[in-house]
């Protein structure tokens, strides 16, 4: 037994010496074969990809069926818009902004109710998030992608009365046509608040309000700091998908400017 072990050990040693020799020889051979290079000069440039280049036909042909299938789905009429809507149409509130707020409430409320048993009190989005207008005519999936190219999703935050007060002050200070729903803010001529109602009732500082927004604004986008660290619910429902779902079930879009945010007289 003992002898066998010794022999074995010796055998291993011999093998390992042989292996070392092979490795060394290989390294020697590789380094002989392998030349080394060093940098002499480096030239950097930026090349524009534009219409001066002729597309490779094979690539265009490969893309074509993907584009065709996508276009068919994107261009299919889902709804109809009788009057063009652009976010620059009016100050303080616009038909397209009112549409966005309505969509978030209409599509978000049933899901929120089923998940939490609670209702949405207020909707607040941002005017900057409306990335395109909606011309009069057929409304398609493409319309939703143009207006909302980002993948932001609906988030519902629980705000205290004080935090809602901050939200209202934010709107009054900025006087931008941020899409809102459930709120009515009327201004004096000097721009101060004449009256504020939440679902036709005055602000209750003891109440918790459920405010539907998107994840970008919830995380402090557009300086909406009143959402910071508030409890929230999200359910993986993209604003764009909410738009598409809404367009599919509403035959004609009839959004108008109203007095939800306006001067009092």
């Amino acid at each position: 037994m003992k002898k066998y072990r010794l022999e074995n050990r010796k055998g291993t040693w011999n093998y390992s010496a042989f292996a070392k020799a092979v490795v060394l020889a290989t390294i020697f051979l590789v380094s002989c074969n392998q030349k080394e290079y060093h940098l002499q000069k480096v030239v950097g440039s930026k090349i524009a990809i534009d219409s001066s280049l002729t597309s490779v036909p094979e690539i265009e042909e490969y893309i074509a069926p993907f584009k065709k299938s996508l276009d068919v789905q994107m261009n299919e009429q889902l709804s109809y818009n009788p009057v063009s809507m652009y976010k620059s149409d009016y100050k303080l509130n616009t038909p397209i902004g009112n549409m966005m707020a309505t969509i978030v409430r209409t599509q978000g409320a049933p899901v929120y109710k089923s998940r939490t048993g609670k209702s949405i009190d207020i909707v607040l989005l941002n005017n900057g998030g409306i990335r395109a207008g909606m011309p009069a005519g057929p409304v398609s999936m493409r319309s939703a992608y143009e207006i909302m190219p980002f993948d932001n999703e609906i988030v519902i935050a629980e705000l205290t009365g004080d935090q809602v007060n901050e939200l209202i002050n934010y709107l009054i200070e900025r006087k931008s046509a941020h899409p809102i729903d459930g709120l009515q803010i009327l201004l004096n001529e000097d721009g101060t608040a004449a009256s504020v109602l939440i679902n036709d009732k005055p602000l209750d500082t003891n109440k918790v309000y459920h405010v539907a927004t998107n994840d970008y604004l919830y995380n402090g986008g557009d300086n909406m700091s009143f959402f910071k660290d508030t409890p929230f619910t999200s359910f993986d429902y993209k604003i764009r998908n909410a738009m598409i779902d809404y367009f599919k079930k509403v035959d004609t879009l009839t959004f108008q400017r109203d007095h939800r945010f306006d001067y009092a007289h």
Partner: protein
Amino acid sequence: MERRKFIRNTSAGIVVGSALWSNYALANGILTAPELAAGTKKITILHTNDTHSHIEPISGGRNHGRGGVARRAALINKVREENPNSLLLDCGDIFQGTPYFNFYGGELEIKLMSMMGYDAATIGNHDFDNSIEGLYAQLPHATFDFVISNYDFSNTIMDDQIKTRKVIIKNGVRIGLFGLGIQLQGLVDPKMYKETVYNDPVEVAKDQVRLLREEDHCDIVICMSHLGYSYRGDKVSDVSLAAVTSGIDLIIGGHTHTFLDAPVLVKNAIGKDVLVNQVGCYGINLGRIDFYLNEGKIDKGMDVVYEL
């Protein structure tokens, strides 16, 4: 035997390469580079970042009519004709940005990159937008490697699907690639990236450079980054990484959609130059870096010449 083949390929490469270059340069009236001297090797790096599913040229807005994959392919083919010793690399955020991604999940983006002959890509935060499974599902369409060194995918479906470093030999020149991704926490929903572990880019970069230089004997080391070009504060970026490491020749980056007019030189930890570049987004530009190399170890009396 192998050596003879190597020499034959090399000389043929130089003759064909330089002839094409002269023809191209003369035809375009932009003969800026001298003919390759005997023994000089030219390696061209082409790179993109943040292409964000932009397949067709951009429609509308300030970049209207720019970009387009079929045109990018034409440009790549032109450069490859001029110099067959070219590499094509992407620095992440291949996914998300047009309905092509929402409809096809990134399949077309990856298939087209394979058709264009990309050699490697690193991974951006938006490449997790259909979750780590969504990225994994597109891997069969890639004929190129995903190279990322600081994401530990051990406990995910991506385990063994990526390379932490890659060596490509072109005309005898050994080009080493490694990849760095941005911190995902706070940027990407954890349910998307699952148990992907983010490791410190600076420490990982130092390890990778050592492996590429000492074990793989690379002549050029390139970092493919999705860290972002530069930040206020101490968040790690391409510029800050360049300054605290050594042994990297080029950092090509992404994430911040930075349109640099020309690549930027940054002094590294031992006072040598590192080239840092990023070409905006959406396939509007193609970055191009031409490396000219001479045989032998670095001549201490000679500085590398940069034409930027």
